[in-house]
């Protein structure tokens, strides 16, 4: 790791100004991912702007939304009584993430910006289009068990690792940003980008922009939500496949549904067509299976991750059956 400059910012505006005034800088909060990336040589910065002192750690609520400060730690959001009651999927996704130690440190904003766990991306000795554009993607012809079956391109098939982002995608959250040109809000559906031919661009952040807050709409839908994460060991491991689902029923009929998935897409994967399959129809094994088939209709599996096509449908079926009380 090369030497880097370090400044502690006092206000969000201060942080954005410092970042704009330093070459190749980035913000650091918990540092649980950034420092590993820098140590491994997967990412290099000349300057770090420490944002831990900013007044952005609060969790507020009003009639419309739960407003989560970007510096709220994973643990605090997961344990917040209102989050648990009104958006259980959010709490469950956070508690299924990382380890207690990491959750104590890692902040919400940083969680949304964590980088893929693709081994080729993390290894400075391997080619990787995301790390070094144009160098190639060894995962496509190499080891791709953890990689995406949806949303990939010839340049990149890496999955986004955040569980939180999957839950927020299901809940239609909005990401609030502050940059040199002022504040703006981006729906989470537009926040994460498909890799296409520019896999190095993962999010819709403009240079120097800082995440200040994430708003989660308060809906009755969100109160009926769940997160299921399947992984290769019991804890402290990223998803092989995960499902964030919210379901609103009228009797046996689905009034509304939100479905998002982790481990299968190059970004947190929302499928509104699968939701549409369920909406207005009774929740049965048949409709659930149909939603699953729609989800994987365009799946493009690779050598080692073919099983995800089947596994994600089973995971979806489990979550929907439990949420909807289907035997």
């Amino acid at each position, binding site marked *: *790791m*090369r*030497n880097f400059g370090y400044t502690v910012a006092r206000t969000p505006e201060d942080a954005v100004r410092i970042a704009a005034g330093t070459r190749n800088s980035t913000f650091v909060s918990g540092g649980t991912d950034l420092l*590993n990336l820098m140590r*491994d*040589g997967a990412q290099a910065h000349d300057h770090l702007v420490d944002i831990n002192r900013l007044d952005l750690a609060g969790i507020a609520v009003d009639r419309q939304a739960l407003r989560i400060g970007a510096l709220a730690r994973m643990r605090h959001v997961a344990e917040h009584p209102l989050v648990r009651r009104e958006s259980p999927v959010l709490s469950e996704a956070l508690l299924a993430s990382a380890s207690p130690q990491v959750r104590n440190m890692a902040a919400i904003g940083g969680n949304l910006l964590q980088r893929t*766990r693709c*081994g*080729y991306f*993390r*290894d400075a*000795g*391997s080619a990787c289009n995301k790390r070094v554009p144009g160098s190639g993607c*060894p995962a496509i*012809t*190499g*080891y791709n*068990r*953890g990689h995406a079956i949806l949303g990939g391109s010839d340049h990149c098939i890496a999955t986004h690792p955040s569980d939180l982002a999957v839950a927020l995608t299901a809940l239609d959250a909005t990401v609030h940003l502050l940059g040199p040109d002022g504040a703006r809000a981006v729906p989470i559906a537009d926040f994460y980008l498909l890799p296409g031919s520019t896999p190095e661009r993962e999010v819709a952040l403009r240079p120097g922009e800082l995440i200040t807050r994430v708003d989660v709409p308060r809906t009755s839908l969100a109160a009926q939500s769940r997160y299921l994460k*399947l992984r*290769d*060991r*019991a*804890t*402290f*491991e990223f998803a*092989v496949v995960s499902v964030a689902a919210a379901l609103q029923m009228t009797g046996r009929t689905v009034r509304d549904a939100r479905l998002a998935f982790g481990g299968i897409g190059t970004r947190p994967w929302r499928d509104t067509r699968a939701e549409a399959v369920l909406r207005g129809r009774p929740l049965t094994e048949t409709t659930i299976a149909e939603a699953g088939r729609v989800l994987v209709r365009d799946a493009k599996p690779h050598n080692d991750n073919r*099983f995800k096509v*089947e*596994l994600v449908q*089973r*995971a979806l*079926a*489990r979550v929907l059956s439990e949420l909807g009380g289907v035997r």
Partner: protein
Amino acid sequence: MTGLVGRGVARVDGRAKVTGAARYAADNEVTGVLHGHLVLSTVARGEITEIDTSAALAQPGVVAVYTHRDMPRLTLPSFPFLKGFLPLQDARIHHNGQPVAYVVAETLEQAQEAANHVRVRYRAERPTAHLADALGEAFLPRPFRDRPNEFTRGDAAAALKAAEVRIEQDYTSPTMHHNPIEPHTSTAVWNGNSLTLYESAQGIIFTRGVVAKAFEGFGVRLEDVRIISPYLGGGFGAKGPTWPHTLINAAAARAIGRPVKVVLTRAQMFTMNGHRAEYRRSLRIGATRQGVLTAIVDTSTGQLTRTEESIFNTSDSTLNLYACPNVHVRQMGIRLDLPSSSYMRSPETTAHFGLETAMDELAHELGIDPVELRIRNLPATGNTGNHLQECYRMAAKAFGWARRDPRPRSMRDGNEYVGWGVATETHTYSVFPSSAGLTVGVDGRATLRAATQEIGTGTYTVITQVVADGLGMPIEHVTTLLGDTTYPPASLSAASATMASVIGPASHAAQSARDAVIALAVADPRSPLHGVPAQDVVAERGYLFPRGDRGRRDTYHGVMSRHGRPVEVTGSKQNTGGRSHGAVFVEVRFDPRLAALRVSRVVAAYDPGRVLNHRTAHGQVIGGVTWGIGFALMEHTVVDRNTARVVNPNLSTYLVPVCADTPSVESFFVDRPAEDSTALGARGFGETPGTGVPAAISNAIFHATGRRLRDVPFTQDKLL
């Protein structure tokens, strides 16, 4: 004897470890130390055509950068140096992650950053990285350490052909890495031709030999080298052999004329210090309808390198465990463009997994209970078989095996299938020549010194227990010092050898010292024991008294303070190696809709001869079982097929079990002294627990699902 031996004495080094007072190798602050960082190759096969160190040398704090062009020339040592070549001596690249430069700087961060500025160009050739890509190139390697790779008993081919029942299956396992928590580290301090190494080593006597050999061209003799390694943060076999970083670092320190420290990064530990080789095994087993084994044809294929052909995963259990008259074992190898493999935690597990899975397949085929099938095939003579039978009885009872419905998918709990599986645990243990020096000081306290080491298993504790017991002294009055080659030579802490090798000498030293002090007492007119026949004096809790007359007593402190000089003795005792056995029962729970599996219960019983400390022995079982779960369910080094480069060189993506994957483990011990062991009746035991766990899990999965898995790790995709 004061009954200390066997007791579950708490770790004597526990306090030092949890308070941070214990000094691990990299904790030593050596004045003026420089820091080294290795630059590793990014191709697996080929040649360095150009290497430019000028930019690295220009970085702040950099003292030197060595490449194959200017690295001091060393002598290639033999075993236990396992590599067939020394890196940084020529331009040839034999594997990905091979050292191509060594950067030395004032600080670690400076060395690491400068390493990024070394520019290397290669003429790269396409590597072969997987056994599957070179199956036609399998060959029978030369004997390794005098052990042939082919063994024949009877006529296995004919017996197999004639067998009433046959099981013919293939079993595979991937590359795995040791991954001790403490990284490999070495700090080299030269004083003229004398070299001191603060080293993370499982065998300081071994390491001394390798280092002396490497530097023999400089006139360095064995006695010039001192290795210090009082604590290890785990080794699992990785730190038994000596690896290139130690030699490269010492050579740099010598050339620069200042101490240098190297600590490997986690990623570097995936190419610098050995691994469990990728492995395939074809087993052909023949038996009678009554379940008596008549033939085993066992052909395994392990990964070798271009530069050596050493087989570490041997088929010992095929040869020794069951009484089969016709056996043909071949341990084949295939050369790949990968780093050297090595011994890794219970190396026989690799082969044993196949045998114990095949035994379960045979039991199912014949409709015989798998425990009964094994008992029918135990050797008729020797108490080994008898005690293993007892292990099976003890563990089966505690597990509740009698309640098992043998039909697959027959046992359910709610939405989950329950599967019960069993396997024999077995491993060879070795013995290495050992001695121990014991000093009883004028304060009446004792210090034992031996050049073996503590690798986290409880060596300090058990030796201290045995010495205190032999002396008849409170355990608090005995100090054990290990991990320094200036102490009397003693065992490698590997191959389950430490206790079997060191306890005899330690116990012998304690008895000699006790006798010497008693002799002083009875000859001393100032002692209450003056004139008592020495053989009538006993020692207990620091007191010396005539048998049956506690009132007429002296103390170690009294005798020694009057004597005014320490008593010093050396203990030694030969022992022979052997095998330790056990039986392990595993319960798994399987959710068929999600294909999710977990291990919910483990019960095991063992025959390690006499148990010297029940607590450390149980600890060893917990560790072994946990690694067995890792072997079965998750451990897997991913080597890219095209580049022969490790894709998951970190603990985030190389998975080992966490607590939530590991149920509580119940252990039982036969606890009867082994007549063939001079270590107070204790056998080597360390590597036995866990050897049967992968097969027991595979067998439990079959019971739960009706599905037979033969390729570890058993990940969710294989259970869909």
